[in-house]
């Protein structure tokens, strides 16, 4: 399997045109025309800001661009999955066809292919399922071993987001869809069934931490896509720090967002996706 190496990002943000914005339960899927972007690696992200009216929201925010996983690439298109959790995501969700979008990227270190024929288990929570979509596309396109996809959501409206991926088993906190309970209830048996699997996870911090711990225990390699408040996305501000195992910090934007579970003592509270 190719090693998914990503080409460097163009120096400077580019003005892209919005092709469409579709509802997906509690989320939105933003499609932008994106022709010359270099190929991206599953798990990479872009820093996004609207061309118009970025700023002037509550307390004059947003000011800085916001980080979003590249959820899907199509010929000449990039897709992003959005959840409205504040002024920046709210403004982005207001984008309509023809509007302008500033994008810097692709950025960061994404997922790496599973070793050999190891089975990939995709574990996604909430809007954190975004990078798993492009990962699933890539694995299937490259004819990897059958992929197992486990997705967890807070409620039914969010669970509709599962449609972004194929053949997912779903768990919801409120039991409205699929398994009533935690995503990790579904992961446990999978790890027992196949200790030679590789886990790819993205989601809220508590979920990532649980996944990290389970995989460490089962000695299954875990590639965790973290999040952090970011100002730049390319290593300039040192604002996106997460504690590194054995001391010091890693920059989520350049050392990650995808980190090997073994590099983390634990997934800290601010390092996950909106719950």
């Amino acid at each position: 399997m190719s090693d998914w190496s990503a080409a460097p990002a163009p120096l400077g943000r580019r003005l892209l045109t919005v092709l469409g914005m579709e509802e997906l339960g509690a989320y939105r899927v933003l499609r932008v025309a994106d022709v010359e972007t270099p190929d991206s690696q599953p798990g990479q992200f872009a820093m996004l800001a609207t061309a118009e009216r970025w700023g002037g929201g509550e307390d004059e925010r947003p000011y800085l661009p916001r980080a979003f996983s590249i959820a899907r690439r199509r010929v000449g298109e990039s897709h992003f999955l959005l959840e409205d959790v504040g002024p920046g995501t709210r403004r982005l969700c207001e984008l309509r066809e023809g509007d302008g979008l500033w994008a810097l990227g692709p950025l960061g270190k994404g997922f790496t292919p599973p070793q050999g024929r190891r089975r990939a288990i995709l574990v996604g929570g909430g809007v954190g399922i975004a990078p798993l979509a492009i990962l699933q596309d890539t694995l299937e396109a490259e004819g990897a071993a059958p992929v197992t996809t486990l997705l967890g959501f807070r409620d039914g409206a969010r669970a509709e987001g599962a449609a972004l991926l194929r053949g997912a088993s779903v768990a919801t906190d409120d039991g409205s869809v699929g398994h009533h309970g935690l995503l990790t209830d579904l992961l446990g048996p999978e790890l027992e069934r196949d200790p030679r699997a590789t886990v790819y996870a993205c989601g809220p911090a508590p979920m990532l931490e649980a996944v990290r711990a389970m995989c460490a225990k089962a000695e299954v390699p875990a590639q965790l896509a973290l999040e952090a408040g970011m100002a730049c996305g390319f290593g300039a501000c040192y604002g996106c720090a997460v504690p590194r195992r054995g001391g010091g910090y890693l920059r989520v934007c350049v050392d990650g967002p995808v980190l090997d579970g073994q590099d983390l003592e634990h997934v800290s509270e601010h390092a996950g996706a909106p719950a």
Partner: protein
Amino acid sequence: MSVDFCGLSLAHRVINGSGTFDAIAARRAFGEELDRRFPFAAYVSKTITLRPREGNPPPRLWEVAGGLINSIGLPNKGLEGYLAEDLPQLSELSTPAEPGAEPGGDRVAVPLITNVMGSSAEEFAALVEACDARVEIAAIELNVSCPNVETGLDIGADPDQLERVVSACRERTRKPLIVKLTPNTANVPACAAGAQAGGADAVSLINTLRAMALAPAEGGRAGAARGPWLGGGTGGLSGPAIRAVALAQVAAVAARVEIPVIGMGGVQRAAHARDLLDAGATLVAVGTESFRDPATAGQIAREVSD
């Protein structure tokens, strides 16, 4: 039409603010295009200290009306690590001689300015001496926004203390010595005069304004319901919100000292850079705006050059 700054010849008048652009990380993100189109006429390192620092615990960022509060905490490899690992990667930066010209044409070197901070005159002097010994370093910037261990006040907040620190450094190097003034004091022009009296070749300002944010009432940092949001407690405000304060301080300092002034604070567009130049600055630095677009400084350089 290159620009002379303390004997260094620069392609244009726009550089980066210390700690707001990591050329090594940017090279990882943008590849060789970074070297081909390097946006800054001189490259200022983030602050280097004698011993390595890990920086403050997260969260390190908070966004406010027209600005950013950071409490990064000056993470760095320490002097040795910087000289051994980073310097070789920063020694051969260059940029098109014609701001914004397509790569391939004439190029000029991008001098490296190393920004250092100590907690005493001795520490500063030691750092300067070590930098003086390295040819890769073209100039040295002193970050004097460091709390004095006794008084707790910034070393740069008192003109006399600042003069002593600068003269101690002056004795150790003949390379251009730039003093990055602190804005959090009563009389910034007097501090600039102190730096000049101590032998500084230039001053740069403004650094961030002391600011803070409380954790959002609804949730935010678990436990510390209304405690400070930032891991470091307080932080420094940068960006558009400080632009008018920066302009006032730069104008007052430029009117007070003879040495060149590097102006910065909230520069987002060429118009803001021109304000600082018209107020008496020789160079302008772009900081936070590079986070929004790493190409901004290059664009501004192009516009202020014609």
